[in-house]
């Protein structure tokens, strides 16, 4: 129930209405009666941003080839690879915790930049688990049009402390947790399409009809996640396989609206600028722009580019808006509003389009955000191509509570950390440490540190590393861009998850036109040098007076042959 408590704090809604949200997130109170539920939560954020969180929950059955709303393609993959629980995240951008506060769903839907995948695979031993993991990544790669098949042994780790299974498992001892990430994977529409195909209404009705690639991928921050786990009701009598698909995004209202007017942000006409009348500087051709004058107006059809096409007939649909209580919200006529505090929920019309409109609000209403339990950032220190350092700055904003957390770092094999340089600025904050060193070209380093951060303090974790020199065929085509390092995952003891941004590691990079030059040059040198050196070594240099001796010998030989020939002729 801890989770539930935190959740309601985050979203600021009363417990009476939490059922549909909490049900999906907490296995204890899971609702298994419905085959399919979908919900959309819109939340105004400071800085004229809107958080849109789409959530689709489908319940399937075990060991049964009768799939109703549970995506069959996914079920088959899971069955084939013996994966019992699966979490797959596609993310873009970064969550601005300073401005937007704590992440929705305790950060469980947000993955690291790019693609992140972890799963509990049932197998007898590690080798079998690895094999099934490979099967799983390859199959998912095909299903989601992502390069998941590149999650090989060098990118796979087995986290010890950070992740715990969320579902109810029959035999947890046989489960193996494997985790891999592709920080460089660009998430785009080709990943959205298969994602929508998994939904029963396939983006044609219900809230999924709002998901348009152009708007989704113009978001400041955006994540798509798929979580599959077995869930049982409280007495364990009924168990179902549940897939929760979420799409969370933060839209910049100003930019979304501007796109409506013109695809290019051309300068506005002077009369549309909000100039500060107190600063005129004595002439009319100046304009000191005023900022933060109003909460901009927006509607569903404006920020998503299309209205909501009715509800999905296969399940229940909820649409809720969290906005300051004083802000007006208008909905389409055919719907009913249920208002509780600053949360308003709407029933959707079956067939007709549904739209929401939040008019302009001036002066802007203050929006309260819940601070996250931790703020985290990570960066490289130092410069040069030989060595470097990593610095993670983690801040606990709470004035009273000590936060226990686990810091997980999964590094590529060519980044070789020195564990003895691992330092924290707060003494005795490092409680536990799990470290598995890297092996060249086989596996990366895996570091998990259990840390404690006292209230109102900032912890800086640093360590140094060496950079390897790769073989020249091991570089990607854009070698000079650098190598992306997967985000660190921070899990607090209350289950909140934060991911840092990914990093760009510059390795010593050869000039790739150089091999060609070197080959030509060295071939030329070899040819010239070899010729002359061979000549010097093999040829015997003799004085001029010594020459006739050998000449005579040769001449004698020739004469002998001649004589022989003559003798033969004579004989004839």
């Amino acid at each position: 129930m801890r989770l539930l408590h935190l959740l309601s704090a985050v979203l600021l809604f009363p417990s009476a209405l939490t059922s549909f949200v909490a049900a999906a997130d907490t296995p204890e109170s899971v609702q298994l009666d419905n085959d399919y539920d979908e919900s959309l939560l819109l939340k105004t954020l400071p800085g004229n941003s809107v958080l849109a969180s789409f959530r689709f929950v489908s319940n399937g059955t075990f060991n049964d080839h009768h799939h109703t709303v549970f995506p069959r393609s996914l079920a088959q993959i899971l069955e084939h690879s013996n994966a019992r629980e699966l979490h797959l995240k596609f993310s873009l951008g970064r969550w601005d915790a300073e401005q937007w506060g704590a992440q929705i769903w305790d950060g469980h839907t947000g993955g690291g930049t790019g693609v992140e995948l972890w799963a509990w695979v049932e197998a007898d031993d590690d080798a079998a688990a690895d094999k099934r993991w490979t099967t799983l990544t390859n199959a998912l790669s095909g299903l989601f049009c992502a390069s998941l098949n590149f999650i090989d042994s060098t990118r796979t780790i087995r986290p010890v402390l950070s992740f715990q299974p969320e579902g109810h498992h029959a035999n947890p001892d046989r489960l193996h947790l494997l985790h891999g990430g592709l920080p460089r994977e660009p998430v785009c529409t080709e990943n959205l399409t298969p994602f929508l195909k998994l939904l029963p209404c396939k983006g044609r009705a219900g809230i999924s009809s709002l998901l348009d690639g152009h708007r989704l991928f113009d978001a400041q921050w955006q994540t798509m996640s798929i979580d599959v786990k077995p869930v049982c009701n409280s007495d364990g009598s009924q168990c179902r396989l549940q897939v929760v698909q979420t799409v969370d995004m933060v839209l910049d209202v100003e930019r979304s609206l501007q796109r409506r007017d013109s695809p290019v942000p051309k300068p506005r006409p002077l009369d549309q600028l909000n100039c500060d009348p107190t600063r005129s500087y004595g002439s009319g051709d100046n304009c000191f722009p005023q900022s933060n004058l109003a909460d901009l107006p927006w509607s569903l059809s404006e920020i998503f580019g299309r209205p909501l096409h009715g509800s999905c007939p296969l399940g229940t649909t909820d649409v809720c808006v969290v906005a300051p209580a004083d802000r007006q919200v208008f909905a389409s006529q055919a719907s009913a509003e249920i208002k509780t505090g600053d949360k308003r929920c709407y029933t959707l019309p079956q067939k007709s389009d549904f739209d929401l409109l939040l008019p302009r609000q001036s002066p802007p209403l203050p929006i309260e955000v819940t601070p996250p339990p931790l703020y985290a950032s990570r960066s490289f220190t130092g410069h040069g191509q030989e060595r470097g350092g990593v610095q993670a700055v983690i801040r606990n904003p709470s004035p009273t509570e000590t936060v226990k957390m686990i810091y997980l770092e999964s590094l590529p094999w060519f980044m070789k950390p020195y564990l003895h340089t691992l330092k924290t600025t707060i003494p005795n904050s490092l409680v536990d440490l799990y470290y598995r060193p890297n092996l060249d070209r086989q596996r990366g380093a895996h570091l998990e540190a259990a840390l404690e951060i006292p209230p109102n303090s900032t912890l800086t974790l640093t360590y140094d590393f060496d950079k390897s020199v790769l073989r020249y065929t091991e570089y990607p085509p854009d070698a000079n861009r650098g190598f992306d390092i997967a985000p660190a995952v921070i899990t607090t003891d209350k289950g909140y998850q934060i991911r840092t941004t990914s990093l760009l590691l510059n390795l010593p990079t050869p000039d790739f036109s150089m091999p060609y030059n070197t080959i030509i040059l060295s071939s030329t040198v070899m040819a010239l040098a070899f010729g002359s050196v061979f000549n010097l070594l093999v040829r015997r240099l003799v004085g001029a007076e010594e020459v006739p001796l050998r000449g005579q010998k040769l001449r004698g030989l020739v004469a002998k042959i001649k004589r022989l020939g003559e003798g033969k002729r004579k004989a004839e």
Partner: protein
Amino acid sequence: MALPRPLRSTALLRFLPLLSSICILIGVAWLLLLPLDEYSRNTYISENALLPGGVHTYFHGSEQNVFRAYRHEVAALGQQNASTNEVAQVIGDIFKGQGLKVGTQKFKYEAGGRVYEGENVYAVLEAPRGDATEAVVLAAPWLNTDEVLNESGVALVMALARYFKRWSLWSKDVIFLITSDARAGPQAWVDAYHDTHTPPMVESLPVTSGALQGVIVLDYPTAAPWDRIHIVYDGTNGQLPNLDLFNTAVHIAGNQMGVRTSLQELHGHTDSYEDRLRTMLRGMVNQGLGHATGPHSVFIPYHIDAITLQVSGFGNHDEVTMGRIVESLFRSLNNLLEHFHQSFFFYLLLGSKKFVSIGTYLPSAMLIAVNFTIMAIGLWLKSGTKPKTVDAAVAITEKPSDEKNEKKDTEEKEKKDTTSDSSPLPPSSPHLESPRPLLLPLLFLLLTHTLSTIPLLLFNTLPHTLLCPAFTIFSLLSLCLPLLLSFTLHLFSPTPQVYTLLRCFSLLSLGLFLSALATLNFSLSFLIGLGAVPVTFIKPTKCKLVAVLQHLVLAVANPMVALVGVAVYMGEPLGTVLGEAQVGWEINGLWTAVVVWGVWWPAWVVAGVGAWGGGRMVEN
């Protein structure tokens, strides 16, 4: 010595000085040929991703009104003589109003008893959908290199920040940086960005982004219309930004906006041989001095390509043109998929569209450096051969009082002088190897190199008011030092072989160092090599006239005179130049002083000892 006999031939030894001279002559002539069409190339964009000038620019219309308002704000702050803290506050608030993440950074440096402090303010425009792995910087110092208020530059950065915020296309974060001065501020910021700073003198940055890919600095201190853009590109320690960045700026200004560009303060470049040569030489002097020529210079040692755009002249371009050039430049930088790497990092620019690449110009500095090495090899061979007549050798080393021998000796000497450094042996004489006394020359060389730490420490730590007097005293002492050292050396009764070996090692180290330096900082290697040329030819002599000439040459060609020459060239008092060098050492990490005092100066001292050596040997 395992050299084959023919190589030890004295005929070849006799030619070595000539070979050295030829190397020097070719080296200098080579450089003078570079501006010709046959040896230089037209610049081109090597990185296809840049697509310079391939976009429409929209920074105009009402954006100009916003710019004017910001300029009024900046000018008002400038008139009030607002403190750096107030400035950072006001600018930070404007950035915050635009919805950007703002950070400030206080810094304080001390160099030569003077304090350089201020406060940088910067804002990060986080790329929508970006992952904070890469960033580009648009910077403007509050006070430019001439300590003038960068009125339009700062205002333009703020106006562009507001304008850039509205675009969704950024693939990299854009950082808008206003530093409080043109030298210490950028250094403090870039050091802190890479966590190589020294807190608490330089504060850490509260907000950071990803790896910096490029930096454009605006130096636009006027509100008046301007005529052309002066691009400054030299980095500290003679490092240069990738040529693609420079080319992109020239291409966008010239081809897209129709703005002329100039460089190395040579306005009205006519593309004649003289103008090209002048541009190249000015570039070489800047590179050789290795000083920070603008706020961009300090980024380059971190492998971040950076240039400064300065406006110059009076013409018909205004802030909108500048804004559009910057917009187009950032759109090009935004296109970059990889770090700048395609084009040249080592080049000499002859004009905004002509350059010489390292392969073409490097031989010139190498030839100068090789001259020292050739001479050193010659001296080594010479030191290993015994003189033909025993009495001649005795005459030089042990029995100089013998009148007959002395006469013979002077004859020998004259002969030697005419053939420069030839061996006293006739070519057909049998070659005898003699053991070389290595300890004394090596120890002596070590001593002179150790002594070179004195000027290095002296000029980098003294308060700036004492720099000029200290320099005068040091110069006078330096001139006397060879004589003093010569006396000291004489206590160990050195043979001529010791002098030969001493010169050999000194030249060898000089040659080695300069040839290695030529690949890093071509101009410094070339200029020092040129200044040290007399060192090759100075040797112990008993001819009074030659000795006097040698002393005169050494008195002219030395690091101290070179420093005075730099002061004259820059049109600044000597104290300022020394102060600048000190600040460069303390703040920017300049290595030029190490090369001048640690490489050239000891070589010059050893040459001076050699010049005194001849006279002392006669006295014996």
